[in-house]
């Protein structure tokens, strides 16, 4: 029989998995458009000098007192817009953006409710002629409000312009928040896409009894797994390339380190997460259980691995542990390539850990895998 006229098993499996993914519009949106929108939203939010608005509660008494006179002196006159704002104070700053304080006059009980709801985070009151600031000292935002207000009350200056001559804004590529964020988003994209795409895909096929139907044929099981992983890796690659091109065009982010190193950590990350995803999905046929298992893996890493904000703010004892998490390994590796100019040598250790870890979890998954 003519070999040309026969179907090739591996090719058919690859094509089927790929068609299954790309024919689902939701997959394209959440896999490709959403990460780009997220980078755009976060990038714009953290790179623009924006005027900020801060709300403060003031406890005024029926008879004029020190707070009244203080606010009357330093702020604009009482607002008549009817939104409850009694006074406004704007601290101008060209480098960091202006800060406008809005002072809301209310009773002590109302102020406490507003504080609990997060409407205000500082209450200014007067006790025996002394002005007192009430706020949670562990709330950094409240601390900042307190520091700003106490700095300017008492200066005698009616128009407040912050002295920013000694501030040198870091706008060089590589030092901005967006430069920190993008490698993390790329790493997170690999994790989410692989964990959900691969685990959920396998569990769903098992729950639909398609897996048992397929292995009731002479199908080579290894081809099935290889094709599944290859398609996911191709999708991840497309997602990553589109995101990199987008942030290069919009935020001027470039890869300062070695491209082969970036490719190596990308492949290692894919293998690491694919192994983990395969292990997670090796037994269950219930998508609800699959949801839980995947979340148990991805949620702690989302919180700890420093995707949006540095993990160095966590207690020192936790940091060595956090640094060994797969998502941290990929994110830190990518950051070192993107913004520190790292090469293959610098990312050899995380790449090896991810690669070996992925293979170990894959073999464990294979040991316990339930086809039926």
């Amino acid at each position: 029989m003519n070999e040309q006229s026969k179907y090739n098993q591996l090719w058919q499996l690859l094509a089927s998995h790929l068609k299954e993914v790309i024919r689902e519009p939701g997959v394209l949106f959440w896999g490709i458009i959403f990460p780009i929108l997220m980078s755009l939203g976060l990038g714009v939010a953290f790179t623009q000098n924006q005027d900020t608005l801060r709300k403060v509660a003031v406890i005024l008494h029926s008879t004029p007192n020190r707070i009244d006179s203080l606010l009357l002196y330093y702020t604009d006159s009482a607002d008549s817009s009817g939104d409850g704002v009694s006074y406004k104070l704007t601290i101008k700053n060209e480098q960091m953006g202006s800060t406008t304080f809005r002072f809301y006059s209310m009773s002590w009980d109302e102020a406490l409710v507003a504080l609990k709801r997060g409407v205000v985070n500082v209450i200014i009151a007067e006790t025996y002629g002394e002005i007192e600031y009430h706020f949670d000292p562990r709330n950094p935002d409240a601390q900042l409000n307190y520091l700003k207000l106490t700095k300017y009350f008492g200066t005698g200056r009616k128009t407040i312009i912050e002295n920013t001559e000694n501030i040198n804004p870091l706008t060089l590529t590589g030092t901005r928040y967006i430069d920190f964020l993008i490698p993390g988003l790329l790493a997170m994209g690999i994790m989410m896409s692989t964990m959900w795409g691969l685990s959920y895909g396998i569990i769903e096929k098992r729950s639909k009894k398609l897996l048992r139907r397929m292995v009731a044929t002479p199908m080579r099981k290894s081809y099935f797994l290889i094709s599944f992983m290859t398609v996911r890796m191709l999708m991840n690659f497309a997602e990553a390339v589109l995101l990199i091109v987008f942030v290069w065009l919009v935020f001027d982010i470039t890869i300062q380190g070695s491209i082969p190193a970036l490719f190596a950590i990308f492949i290692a990350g894919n293998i690491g997460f694919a192994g983990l995803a395969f292990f997670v999905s090796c037994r269950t046929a219930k998508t609800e259980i699959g949801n839980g298992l995947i979340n148990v893996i991805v949620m702690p890493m989302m919180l700890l691995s420093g995707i949006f904000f540095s993990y160095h703010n966590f207690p020192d004892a936790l940091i060595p542990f956090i640094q060994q998490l797969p998502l941290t390994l990929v994110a830190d590796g990518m950051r070192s390539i993107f913004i520190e100019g790292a090469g293959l040598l610098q990312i050899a250790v995380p790449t090896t850990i991810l690669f070996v870890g992925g293979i170990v979890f894959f073999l464990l998954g294979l040991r316990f895998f339930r086809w039926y």
Partner: protein
Amino acid sequence: MSVHPLVQVTDVYKSFKAVKAVNGLTFQVDQGQFLALLGPNGAGKTTMVEMIEGIQQPDRGEILIDGKKWKHHEEEIHRIIGISLQETQYIDKLTVHETLALFASFYHLPKNRVDEVIGIVRLEEKQKAYVVNLSGGQRQRLALSIALLNQPKILLLDEPTTGLDPAARREVWDILQKLKKESGTALILTTHYMEEAEQLCDYIIIIDHGLILKEGTISQLLKVEKDKKIVEFTLRNDHLPAGTDSDHSIFRIHWNKELRKGSVELNEFDKELPEFLEFLHSKKFTIEHLESRRISLDDLFISLTGRHLNE
């Protein structure tokens, strides 16, 4: 030609915790033979078929496919069997043709085989449609076409028409009847539809609680009951007064309240029918409609278990 049966099941047992799903079944299927495993839900039909398919392992007993055990012969057996599992959902966003091409690749089949089976199951017009857009009957025909791809020696169909409307069921039956005429394929079919077993199969095994209750050809099964007839009737006053169908009556009348229809088994039809009419007359019932029919497999199942097949 092989001297052994295509499928030989010998004293097979399978339990799930406390439930004995299959409790010592023995039967065989020869080349070209169509066999039905007929029984209600939970009778052990699917467990038995899945053991033949190699999906489950028996606790005890032996299963030989074409003289071979599953162990060490997986690849060979996969190539000679074609199966359709209960409730398999294929990939939603693949077309009928793509789905068949995928499965054809597992058997390393030539491309024209896909077109052939599409023709056999009459899905030509739907070959470019996504699986998700197929009707229940079309999906079952797709499952059947996948089972037929490798021209199997033995076809195993697990409830292939469950949930289908009568027209769609008839279409599947037509395909299988044509297959029976034109190919030497043997079939093991599980069903709880007696008509399906009667229409398609040469040999029927009635099972319940993992045990064989009765087996034979349709004529063998109903032979001993040939003088027995079922009389079904409706009454002008529309209902049967309480107590008439109790054990104390001469005739054991089953009264279906929903259908407002009665039925009675007459062991010697010629002799007992006048007596039955006299009995109704004595009770001052006026018959509106009456018909008699031969006993069916369902009646046989009721006489063996007290339950309907599709309960």
